[in-house]
């Protein structure tokens, strides 16, 4: 008989390295036509980070994502970056990109101030224009300013900057300190069906609510969450490297080491909770790693809700669940919680 169950789990997760410096640098060049080029030493590993960095530069310069081209992943071309690790790219590299774009913008505002007869501090870059903050009709096209800056004024709008998240080192004996600049939070609720004759667990649905600070690109946040959950399902139910007595891996292949396929991934409903971190670029924190963190306990708690057994050693394979069900059935009838 297939028994339904549901389980909840939440978590917290930090952004960036533990205390250790993990800086990023970036260069932003505004071209004569008002488009921009970003140089970053980070690497796109499939998560869409370059798209997010482009959006951050675009936001600071008041232009659109399509107006920004991001160049990355080449030590001869790009400035240093600590890299695609520790869910740090949006927060740390994003801040570097934002600061570099702000530096380039300073030049644009100064040149525009001559054109508009206003102080640079009275101007803002928005919607492809430099305009007066309090009187938006007083404006000039950003492309025109960029061309003038470079060609007439001899001041190419260029910026470079670095960012390193602020931390406070930890006491070696008590661990007291501020190891990270920011944390994100998340909750996932899993709904499962457990077959009490085979021990097989099917995940039917996962509701995931993830805080990532400001979601620079909600579609990419959702994509990360969905990918993380797929990984979490594997860790909860099937993934395990096994060794023989001589220390030899016995399943180093995808025939015997099972990972979830698209057919194993259930309905996933993602809610992006927007908080605002004053340290993040436009309030953003990050989303990479934490996405799979609550998945395992949510599923394991749902298994317990379904058949009343608590698996404490992952993965909860069908064999392990069935064994636990049999042991429990000897004590009391099977049932919820």
């Amino acid at each position, binding site marked *: 008989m297939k028994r339904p169950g549901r389980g909840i789990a939440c978590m917290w997760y930090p952004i960036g390295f533990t205390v250790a410096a993990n800086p990023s640098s970036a260069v932003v060049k505004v071209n004569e036509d008002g488009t921009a080029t970003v140089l970053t030493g980070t690497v796109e590993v499939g998560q869409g980070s370059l798209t997010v960095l482009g959006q951050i530069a675009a936001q600071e310069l008041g232009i659109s994502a*399509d107006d920004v081209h991001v160049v990355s992943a080449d030590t001869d071309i790009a400035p240093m970056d600590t890299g695609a690790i520790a869910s740090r790219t949006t927060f740390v590299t994003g801040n570097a990109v934002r600061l570099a774009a702000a530096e380039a913008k300073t030049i644009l505002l100064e040149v525009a101030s001559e054109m508009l007869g206003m102080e640079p501090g009275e101007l803002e870059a928005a919607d492809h224009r430099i305009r007066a903050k309090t009187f938006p009709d007083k404006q000039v096209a950003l492309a025109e300013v960029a061309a003038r800056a470079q060609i007439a004024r001899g001041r190419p709008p260029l910026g470079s900057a670095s960012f390193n998240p602020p931390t406070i080192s930890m006491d070696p004996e008590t661990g007291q300190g501020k190891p990270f600049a920011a944390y994100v939070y998340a909750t996932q*609720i899993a709904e499962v069906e457990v077959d009490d004759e085979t021990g097989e667990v099917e995940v039917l649905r996962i509701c995931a609510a993830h805080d990532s600070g400001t979601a620079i690109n909600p579609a990419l946040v959702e994509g990360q969450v969905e990918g993380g959950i797929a990984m979490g399902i594997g860790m909860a139910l099937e993934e395990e490297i096994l060794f023989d007595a001589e220390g030899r891996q016995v399943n180093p292949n*995808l025939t015997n080491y099972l990972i979830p396929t698209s057919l194993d991934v259930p309905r996933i409903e993602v809610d992006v909770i927007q908080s605002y971190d004053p340290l993040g670029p436009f309030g953003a924190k990050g989303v990479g790693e934490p996405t799979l963190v609550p998945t395992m306990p949510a599923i394991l708690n749902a298994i317990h809700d379904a058949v009343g057994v*608590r698996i404490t050693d*992952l993965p909860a394979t069908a064999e392990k669940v069935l064994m636990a069900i049999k042991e429990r059935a000897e004590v009391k009838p099977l049932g919820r919680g």
Partner: protein
Amino acid sequence: MPRKVTEEKQAEAQQLLEAPPATHLPAVAPDSLPKAPALTPEVNKQTPAVGQRVTRPDIRTHITGTTRYIDDLSFPGMLHVKILRSAHAHARILSINVDALHKMPGVVATLTGEEVPVNSFGSTYQDQPVLAVDRVRHRGDGIVAVAAETEQQALEALDAVKVDYEPLPAVFDPLEAMDPDAPKIHRIDNVYASKVIMRGDVDRGFEESDQIFERRYTTPMIEHVPLEPFAAIALWEPDGQLHVYSTNGRITLGRADLARTLSLPMNRIRLTATIIGGNFGGKNEIRTEPIVALLAKKSGRPVKAVYTRQEEFIASTTRHPLVMDYKTGIANDGRLLARSVKLVLDGGAYASWSETTVGKAAILAAGPYRIPNVRVEGRAVYTNKTVTGAMRGFGAPQVAFAYESQMDEIAYSLGIDPLEIRLLNGFEEGSISPTGQVLQAVALKETLLMAAKRSRWREGDL
């Protein structure tokens, strides 16, 4: 700013819908082909840019299967590398004989650890050899690398290598490895990294608790399984610069590691990471990069190394297995009063990212809860197993499995709804973490309530 949908744009969208199907395009799009309009062109052109569901610039080649990964790159005269790996989990290497290797068909160059200028690397401790010279510490240790005209020839040539070993006692269980009498895997103690977090008085907290819950949780070793395995190509440019294409996710530090192992100035090395087919933490260290660089130098030709799926499992890093002992004291109303956690991380044969992992696991181990008394001790231990290192979450998924399983157990035992006990204890704006940090932008309860609302948790059973 509201989205501007003009009639013109609508007409453009209509045109897109009526456009001939994609099959009219050539199977492989040449670079000169004009870019198809983005699926949602307006989003990419909107300001403000932040908050838009912008489409990725690389999405088109990903979807059409035309993204070029390292395995798709080729250079004239390029050689292929295979690596002989250890036949033992722990052994002394008495001799390595590669004489017969040079007579094998297609073999152009070979490399042993003695030829690597600085034969060690590692993100925290440089305890891992590029190629093992006098000792192997797990079965994934490489010993000899061979570059041949084809991958098959390189693979077959490995049979001609003769390695004499003197097997040493091995230890595979991290708890056994902590025993003072256990075989030592490195010159230092097997416990090579640790972290302690203490806040409040945990013993007093337990004394004041109404109930105490204790349980051990364990998690297995897990592989990242990126679709693209490790890959690297090295070639020496005419101006003497080494150019390495690699799946490395951290090129700044990758170049530093290459400069160190090869004893080259950093500006003589160019590290280019192509589009990477999945990282998940596994591609955060150098792997075959020094090997292909040296074989390219010896052969005078470009050299490529691509891991097989099996190598990806046995000779890269994996997720740390953890043994986690949780003890939690509570008041009968469900408040958490004290929690002590002991973590043992199976650190595998080399340090890699274990120090970071034990630190993160320890900092996060008590969960996102306001607990006045906390003590966490984490230790990472060498074993003769596959190296454990960086993997998505750095210890957090393991401890979350433990703290959230125990939270559930406490809730059921007290007859409190699992959602409500989390809301009762969860972090709020300004809460103090176990390391004494005042937390800001805390959205824990918002996520709890949102997920509960989405799943209709409070409306009752399924």
